Structures are given as structure tokens and as C-alpha cells.
């Protein structure tokens, strides 16, 4: 493509997206005027989500294409800057947007493993993969494995692994889509899933990578605005400084000071906290006694206990002066009583665990690897490191991210585009820790110590929506909120920030739209990866290499539809929770792809046997460890070297590298043509270069 054409294209894009961003801000302003005029909140939520979803579908329709290179790699003319934004949206999922700040709120320093892992991985992408994959210049990651190692076996394993990790990840995204649409529009979860999915489909179905790229750029703009606006506001409220990333050091100091006061029983507030904690300790003991008795006496204990509760209700009813609230509580206790031993054990264990957490001192937010003794601390440190490594290597191996670097115009642009990607991603990851601290400051100073009769309005609002997100109960009946009486679900932090900061409802709707954009953009990229692996790698490369363009695209689109419907169906069954799925996807990708990809570029001696051994070995080690350790599967075998299940990939990566190296050294070196391919991939331009053909 000639230079003047591309630079005109770039300036055109800049103009379009500047207009779009201005238009979007105008739209938010317009809605806030409508809010002032008295349009109800539910209506605003509908308008917001409806307009953004229509917008994405509109971009999809405008970018429809029937050209193979446009469909698979957006015509390879996406400028570095815009590819950076698209990678940003592709990368930041519902888990980053909604979950991350909450995780940081709940686990303090230890949660920063996600921040480090999800950004530092791009250093690996930049240095080890992106420029070389761009030079190779085909369509999918299995393409590279197939060409580099020769034959269909490495490609087939690549397809299997790509589908496995992308599918695991896409379920988590669709789950997020369903959650957001149902919460903000009142539609039920299943309908929410299908409405969100509709917009993904219009987009990728008509225009493939081309449509997904330009939609993702639009989604990035929405999600970053939605994330930043409330946090900036909150920062101004607490510090007077509009740059939260700089201002929150000072807030963190105050949070730490508050932690010390609340943990010190010689202060009046500390004494009240201690009182609540001792009530929780008592409750834990009671539940543990139940458990012990259950173990000793079995089902008969349940029957006696239940009889006792029923009798208590009868006694209360017999008395004239019974408080109706007390009676209701006693009735509830009977109704909630577990029907059999297994249920009882599960329920009581959960309760004991919850009470135990509440009876401990306030966690120090800034302290790394906190623990009562050296062994606990060391173990936490080890797992922190393992998780960081797993997430980083997983980042550098997820096919939907690597695939985006095929879409730039050149190797040079690919390198620059990793820079822009990391830049745009870091904007959010630098903000999330600030948000966690600012929200914590609000809770520790404004909520704690306030009176139950005058709770801040956001607290009562969210407590009425979902008890698992926000609940406050006056445990010691003193009418004042203690920290131990507050239960906060992680997702609350981002969702409630606009209200905590005292912003109008429009901003809450904006945050919902941002979360939706994050989930949809990631889901878009993932579904395309899955259907492309099937249509390009399986159908075109292995089944029918002579297929005409029209049929290839027809197959690609039909598969996309099938994958989408199947993924939505699986999601509607609600399998496991989001963090479990996300962690699994990273570990699987890291184990299966990274060793074979990186060594394929940097070690000419790596051959097919090595690749097959490394990929299969890594993948199966990782799957095996997840199977035996994730509570979900119910095996619960002892951990290897105390490594948490979420970091299963660490074993997979090691086995993967060992497999590629051993397998390659034990068999003959790859042929001349494969070695030439490695050389061509290593140099942006060589005499006698192969030209990737686009048809």
C-alpha cells in the first residue's frame, strides 16, 4: 500500500474518532440534562445501554466486508495508535473493568499481582513475539505453529488449545454481559446474555476483524471515560487533586492511620470494633460446636436441633408480649434449617469461615504478604510471584491478543503498536489501585462511625439491590456502624463509585455502559479467534485448501454463529465463577503456546517433535493440576509446593519448555526451509523475502 494513501487514512481516522468522542461526551451531557428534567433512572439506563449497543452494531454494518484479508486481519492497515486502543479494549475484560478495583480493595497489596501480571506481560509480547509474528504475517496463531514446525499436528494442537482457552475466557465475558444488562435494565439474566450477544454478532458476523477493530476502538473510548470520570471526581472530593494516581499516596497514609486506630482496643472506636469481633468469634464457636456435634451424632443431631428450633417458635407464639421481629427471626431459623447432613456441613462451614474472617483485625492495605508467621508470609510471597509469572506469560500467549498484531501495516508499526497498547491499558491499571484506596478511605472515615439511622444514601441503595454486594447489620446494637459490621462484595467498588462520589445517576449508567463495552469487546475478539481457528485452520488449511473465497467466508460466518449460540447456552448454565474461568484461561494459554512460540522464533533448532511434546506436555500438566486442585472438580488433592490452583500454568510452562527442548534435541534438526523461515521472521526486510499472500 502506498504511503500517501495510508497517511490520509490515518488522518481520516483521527477526525472520525475525535468527532465520535466529542459526540459521545455530548450524549452524556444531554442525558444528564434529561435526568435533571426528571426522566426516571431505569429509562436512562435503557437509553444508555441501547444507544451504545446500537452504535457497535452500526459500526459493524458500516465495516461489513467480503474480502478475506479484511475479514481475518482488517486488511493489515490498522495504524499503531488505533491498534493500541483496539488491543486495550480487546484486553480489558469485565474482570479488569469491574472486578480489579474490588479485588484490590479486598486484598490490598496482594491483589497487585493482577496489576503487574496484566501489564508486564506486554513486555514479553513486545520483545519476544509481536514483531516476529507480524513479519510472518498470516492469519492465526496456529498458522504460525503450522508453518514453523511443519505438518498438521502442531497446527491441530494449536487449534485445540486456542479454542480451549478462548472458550473458557469467552464464557466469563458473556457472564459479565448478562450480569450488567440484567442489573441495569431489569431484563433477566438469560435475555441480557442474548441481547448483548446480538450486538457482538452483528459486528463480527458482517465485518470480521475489520468490524471488530473499529468497534473496539470505539469501545475503548467509552470504557476509559467511564472508568476515569468517577475516580477523578472522587479524588477531587477527598484530596482536591484531579489526578488520582498522584493524589492517593496521601490518602493511603490516612487509610493506614485509620487501620491502626480501628485495630487498637484502647481507643473508643477500636474498643467497639473489638466488641463486634468478639461477637463474631462467639458465633464462629457456636457454629463449630454444631459441626462437631453433627460429626459425632450424624443425622439424629439435625433432628434434635430442628425440634429445638420448632419448639422455640411455639414458645414464642404462646407468649403474649413477643416482639414480632423476634418471632419472624425464629421462624426464619426453622425455614433455613438445612434438610440433610451434607447441606448442613456445607452451610455451617461457610458460616464459620465468614465469622472467622470477621473476627480478625483489619487488614493493612499497603502491607505485602501479611500473615501471622514467617511461613504464611513466605508462602504468600511465593504464590504472588507464581501468579504474576503465570498472568504475564498467559498475556503473551492468548491468541486473541497476539492475533491483533497481524493487523498492523508493518513490523515497525507492530512494535509501536505494543507500546500504544500498553500505554492505553496502563491508564486503567494505574487508576484501579487509586480507586481501591479512595473507596476504602470513604468507607473507613464516612461510613464507619456513622449512625444506622442516617446511613449514606449509596449504602442503603446498594444494600437493597444485592446483599452480597453491600450489607450492614448492627451486630452489637449500639446504633453505630463498625467496620466489622460492613460486608462489601468486590464488584461494588466500581459500580458504586459514582454514587460514593456524589455524581448523578447518568454517570452510574455510563459506568454500566463502560463495563458492557469491556465485556463485549473482549468477547468479540475471542469469538473471532475461535471461529477463525475453525474456519481458517481446520476447514481451509486442512480440509479443503482449494475452497473459493466466498465459501471460506460463508463457513467462517456460519461457525461464528454456531460458536456464539453454544457459548451463550453454556453461559446460561452459570458454570463456576468469573475469576476461576479467567485464571484457567491464562494458565492454559501460557502452558500451551508460550514455549513453542518463543522458542520457535529464538531457537532455530526447535523442531516438530519438540513442539508437539512441549505443547501437549504443558497443556496436560496444567489441565491435570487444575483438575486435581480446583474445588470445582471436587478432587481436592494436596497442592504441589503449596502453589495455588490459579497459578496452575507455572507447572505447564516449565513442562512446556522442557518438552520443546528435550524433544528437539533428541530428534533431527528441522530442514533448511524451516530454518530459512525463521531467518525471514527475524528480519523486518530481507532480500528474497517471502511475501505473505492475502488471497
Amino acid at each position, binding site marked *: 500500500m502506498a504511503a500517501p494513501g495510508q497517511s490520509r487514512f490515518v488522518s481520516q481516522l483521527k477526525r472520525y474518532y475525535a468527532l465520535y468522542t466529542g459526540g459521545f461526551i455530548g450524549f452524556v451531557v444531554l442525558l444528564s440534562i434529561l435526568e435533571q428534567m426528571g426522566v426516571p433512572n431505569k429509562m436512562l439506563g435503557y437509553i444508555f445501554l441501547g444507544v451504545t449497543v446500537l452504535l457497535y452494531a452500526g459500526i459493524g454494518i458500516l465495516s461489513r466486508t467480503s474480502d478475506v484479508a479484511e475479514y481475518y486481519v482488517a486488511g493489515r492497515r490498522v495504524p499503531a495508535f488505533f491498534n493500541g486502543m483496539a488491543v486495550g479494549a480487546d484486553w480489558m475484560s469485565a474482570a479488569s473493568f469491574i472486578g480489579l478495583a474490588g479485588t484490590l480493595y479486598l486484598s490490598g*497489596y496482594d491483589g497487585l499481582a493482577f496489576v503487574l501480571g496484566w501489564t508486564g506481560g*506486554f513486555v514479553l509480547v*513486545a520483545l519476544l513475539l509481536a514483531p516476529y509474528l507480524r513479519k510472518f504475517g498470516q492469519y492465526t496463531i496456529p498458522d504460525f505453529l503450522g508453518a514453523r514446525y511443519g505438518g498438521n499436528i502442531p497446527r491441530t494442537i494449536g487449534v485445540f488449545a486456542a479454542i480451549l482457552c478462548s472458550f473458557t475466557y469467552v464464557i466469563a465475558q458473556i457472564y459479565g454481559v448478562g450480569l450488567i444488562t440484567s442489573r441495569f435494565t431489569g431484563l433477566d439474566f438469560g435475555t441480557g446474555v442474548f441481547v448483548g450477544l446480538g450486538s457482538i454478532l452483528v459486528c463480527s458476523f458482517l465485518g470480521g476483524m475489520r468490524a471488530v477493530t473499529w468497534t473496539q476502538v470505539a469501545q475503548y473510548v467509552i470504557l476509559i471515560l467511564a472508568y476515569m470520570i468517577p475516580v477523578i471526581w472522587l479524588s477531587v472530593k477527598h484530596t482536591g487533586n484531579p489526578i488520582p494516581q498522584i493524589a492517593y499516596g496521601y490518602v493511603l497514609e490516612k487509610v493506614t492511620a485509620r487501620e491502626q486506630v480501628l485495630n487498637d482496643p484502647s481507643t473508643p472506636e477500636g474498643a467497639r470494633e473489638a466488641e463486634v469481633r468478639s461477637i463474631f468469634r462467639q458465633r464462629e464457636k457456636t457454629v463449630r460446636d454444631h459441626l462437631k456435634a453433627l460429626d459425632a451424632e450424624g443425622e439424629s443431631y439435625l433432628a434434635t436441633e430442628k425440634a429445638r428450633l420448632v419448639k422455640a417458635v411455639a414458645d414464642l407464639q404462646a407468649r403474649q408480649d413477643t416482639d414480632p421481629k423476634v418471632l419472624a427471626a425464629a421462624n426464619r431459623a426453622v425455614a433455613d434449617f438445612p434438610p440433610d447432613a451434607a447441606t448442613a456441613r456445607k452451610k455451617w462451614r461457610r458460616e464459620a469461615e465468614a465469622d472467622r474472617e470477621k473476627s480478625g483485625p483489619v487488614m493493612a492495605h*499497603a*502491607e505485602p*504478604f501479611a500473615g501471622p508467621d514467617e511461613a504464611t508470609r513466605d508462602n504468600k*510471597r511465593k504464590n504472588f*510471584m507464581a501468579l504474576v509469572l503465570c498472568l504475564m506469560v498467559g498475556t503473551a500467549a492468548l491468541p486473541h491478543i497476539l492475533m491483533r498484531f497481524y493487523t498492523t501495516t508493518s513490523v515497525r508499526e507492530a512494535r509501536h503498536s*505494543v507500546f500504544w497498547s500498553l500505554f492505553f491499558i496502563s491508564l486503567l491499571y494505574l487508576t484501579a489501585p487509586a480507586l481501591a484506596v479512595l473507596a476504602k478511605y470513604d468507607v473507613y472515615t464516612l461510613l464507619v462511625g456513622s449512625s444506622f439511622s442516617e446511613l449514606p444514601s449509596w449504602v442503603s441503595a446498594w444494600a437493597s439491590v444485592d446483599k452480597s454486594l453491600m450489607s450492614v447489620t448492627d451486630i452489637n446494637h449500639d446504633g453505630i456502624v463498625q467496620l466489622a459490621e460492613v460486608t462489601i462484595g468486590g464488584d461494588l467498588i466500581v459500580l458504586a463509585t459514582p454514587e460514593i462520589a456524589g455524581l448523578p445517576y447518568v454517570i452510574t449508567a455510563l459506568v454500566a455502559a463502560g463495563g458492557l463495552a469491556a465485556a463485549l469487546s473482549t468477547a468479540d475478539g475471542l469469538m473471532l479467534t475461535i471461529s477463525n481457528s475453525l474456519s481458517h485452520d481446520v476447514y481451509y488449511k486442512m480440509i479443503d485448501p482449494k475452497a473459493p473465497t466466498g465459501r471460506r467466508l460463508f463457513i467462517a460466518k456460519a461457525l461464528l454463529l454456531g460458536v456464539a449460540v453454544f457459548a451463550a447456552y453454556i453461559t446460561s448454565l452459570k458454570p463456576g465463577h468469573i475469576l476461576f474461568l479467567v485464571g484457567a484461561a491464562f494458565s492454559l494459554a501460557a502452558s500451551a503456546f508460550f514455549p513453542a512460540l518463543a522458542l520457535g522464533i529464538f531457537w532455530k533448532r526447535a523442531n516438530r517433535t519438540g513442539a508437539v511434546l512441549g505443547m501437549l506436555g504443558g497443556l496436560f500438566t496444567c489441565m491435570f493440576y487444575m483438575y486435581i486442585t480446583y474445588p470445582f472438580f471436587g478432587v481436592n488433592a494436596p497442592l504441589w509446593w503449596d502453589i495455588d490452583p490459579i497459578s496452575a500454568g507455572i507447572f505447564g510452562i516449565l513442562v512446556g519448555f522442557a518438552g520443546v527442548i528435550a524433544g528437539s534435541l533428541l530428534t533431527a534438526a528441522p530442514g533448511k526451509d524451516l530454518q530459512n523461515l525463521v531467518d525471514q521472521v527475524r528480519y523486518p*526486510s530481507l532480500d528474497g523475502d517471502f511475501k505473505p499472500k492475502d488471497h
Partner: protein
Amino acid sequence: MQLKDRHKQYWRQNLHLTGVLLAIWFVVTFVVGWFARDLQSVTFLGFPLSFYMSAQGALLIYVALVGYYAYRMDKLDREYEVHERDQ
């Protein structure tokens, strides 16, 4: 196709740069992280240093590493005449 000496030298230079940047990446992430508990008492911009590094410092360094790599490789490509010409 036969690689010329200057091609081999280009690749060595690239490996060298990649190695140095990866070493920085490793130190910033894993060495600093390993000693996080010891760095708590040091204060930086109001933050405990260990918290600052994991929440902000490391990220800024990552961005700088990737940016420097792109800039340096552009120059290296031209120096060794392996840059892409038709753009």
C-alpha cells in the same frame, strides 16, 4: 538465501537489547517483589516504596521498556538496512 555478516550482527545486537530489557523487566518485577516486605519502611511520594513499585513504578517502567525497544529497533533496522521500504 544466505545471511550476510551484517545480518548476523543485526540479530546479535537485537538479542543483546532484548536480553538487557528482559533483565530490567525481571528485576523490576521479581527481585523488587521478592524484597517487598523489606522496602515497606521506605517512603516514596507518600507511598510505602513496595506498594508504589507494584501499583505504579513497575508499570511506568514497562511502558518505558516497550517504548525504548520500538525506538531503538527502528534505528537498528535502518542502520543495518533491514527496514521496510515501501511505507
